[in-house]
């Protein structure tokens, strides 16, 4: 993301803010969709995140953390949404999936969905937000070493579940 553009956005330039958010809209979509499993809810959360980013942008002191800050707000929005809906929403009806992929997708997706949220959000950030462990640590306000070990735990869990399923 263009550092000068982010700086202008944080200083109150609305057009710059729009461009910054549009430049990561795909990542926002994947993050929200993978956590919520529903594109309509994901859209609502991204809109709510946009509003909060617009209102609170002046609280961001370091422009280089803009993206992690936006992702953090989005993840919190998604958590709140999950809390409101109280459960995981079935993905089948909401995803555009080629029929040949459907079985594999459903099965991996169910496994990921069953992960505890603190593990799932790390997987989501690593896979879809192209973040390294340090950046994920920034988002979660968690030490990098903890993020790494949680990531390893998440992968291990997925591996075990997959092996069990395949057997």
């Amino acid at each position, binding site marked *: 993301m263009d550092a000068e553009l982010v700086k202008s956005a944080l200083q109150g330039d*609305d057009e710059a*803010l*729009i461009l910054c*958010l*549009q430049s990561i*809209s*795909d990542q*926002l*979509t*994947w993050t929200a*969709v*993978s956590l919520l499993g529903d*594109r309509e809810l*994901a*859209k609502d959360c*991204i*809109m709510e995140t*946009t*509003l*909060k980013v*617009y*209102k*609170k942008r002046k*609280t961001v002191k370091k422009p280089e953390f803009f993206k992690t800050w936006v992702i*953090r*707000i989005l993840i*919190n929005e998604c*958590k709140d949404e999950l809390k409101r809906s109280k459960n995981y929403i079935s993905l089948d009806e909401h*995803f*555009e*999936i080629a029929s040949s*992929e459907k079985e*594999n*997708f459903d*099965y*991996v*997706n169910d496994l*990921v969905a069953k992960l505890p949220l603190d593990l799932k959000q790390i997987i989501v950030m690593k*896979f*879809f937000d192209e973040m390294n462990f340090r950046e994920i640590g920034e988002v979660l*306000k*968690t*030490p990098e070493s903890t993020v790494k070990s949680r990531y390893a735990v998440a*992968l291990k869990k*997925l*591996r075990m579940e*997959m*092996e069990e399923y*395949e057997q």
Partner: protein
Amino acid sequence: MNNNNLDRWQETIKSQRIEGIDDLIRSKIENQVRRPLYFQWKVVFTGMVAVFVSFALLVNLNPRFNAFAHNNDILRPIAEMIDFTNRNDVEDAFDLDYAQQTDIHLVAGDYKLDLEYVISDYFTISLFYELTYQGEPYEGFTPPKTGPEIELVDSDGERVWTSAHNTYFEGYQWMELELIDLNAFEPLTIRIIADDDDKTESESATIQNSPYKKVEMIKQELNQAIEIDGQRIILDSLEVGAFVSRLKFHADPENSERIDQMTFSYQNGKKQAQTVSASWTPNDYTYLFAVGQLNRSGPVEVKIVEATFIQKEKIDIVMDTDTLQIEGLPNEVQVIDQSKGEDEFRFSLLNSKGNYFSAVSKELGIFGVSHSLENPSRTDFYFKSTELTPRRIEIELHESRDLKIEGQKFRLEW
């Protein structure tokens, strides 16, 4: 691990698009920008509204004008009314990710405690929880039946907080705990104790209170002296936490009177409040204000409204428990009432200077001093005698006065 499956899952997620998301982001922001323009449209037609809107915009958009308006006696009331620049509240704590989700669920007897979030700074912890009794929200019992106790203890089982304030935030009960010391943090254990029908049940869990999510304390050195009726206090510092601030000050050692039990009144936005608690040693004071980084509505104006002054100079008197004679009283003080029962003595003093007395006596087990608000020049003394009570009792008197204070105010800003 079957990486192909995971890769394909990723690819599928990455193929998902929300139609028109970029346009939606643009329109969401542009709608926010247009909102003040709508008000500006009215400006053309209404002169008065124009002035008000311009003033409001200046206060909210221009930090220098904001400071000027808040420091101007005439503009301040209007400025505070329309100042939205600092309208932080608890929701902000959640938005800004200070709230730590805990997901702790404890059961003790018929009570269930769901601790959902914790927000902490370096001297307070706020617990956001739901408490139910037999499945229904717990709303307290009529005494003598009592509800459960919720405790926060350290790894040795020692309580880590000194005072608690309960209120509500949205669906949660919100308990704010002041910590005993700044290091009384981790590991913290929350415990619920139910004491019903001669049976005590409890359950506890550890709170994972991440140091990364603590609200950083803001500390300001003040070094500001205030004179109250001839006695000076020096404001030392202000420590601003999440929802509470600590004002620390000390009394000038040259003061002829000790200042005791001060009452501060302060305005946080539209809310009027008084100091919630205080601690002090003879010369150093700490007062807590229920306003912090996350719940301030604007600059906080503090007024000193009441204080008790106690003369440092003492008057030593001696009372003979047989004859009830009192020695050492100054001329302006008269004994106006005296009585002796089987195991108790009473007497009252009238001070023509109009002040009452605070008193101490090391020799008495049970000793009471009181004065009436209507007649502060009269002080009543009571003590219960025992076999160990000596014939002559030494008492140390200090002239004291309660003062209503006007016009003493200062501002807390950070």
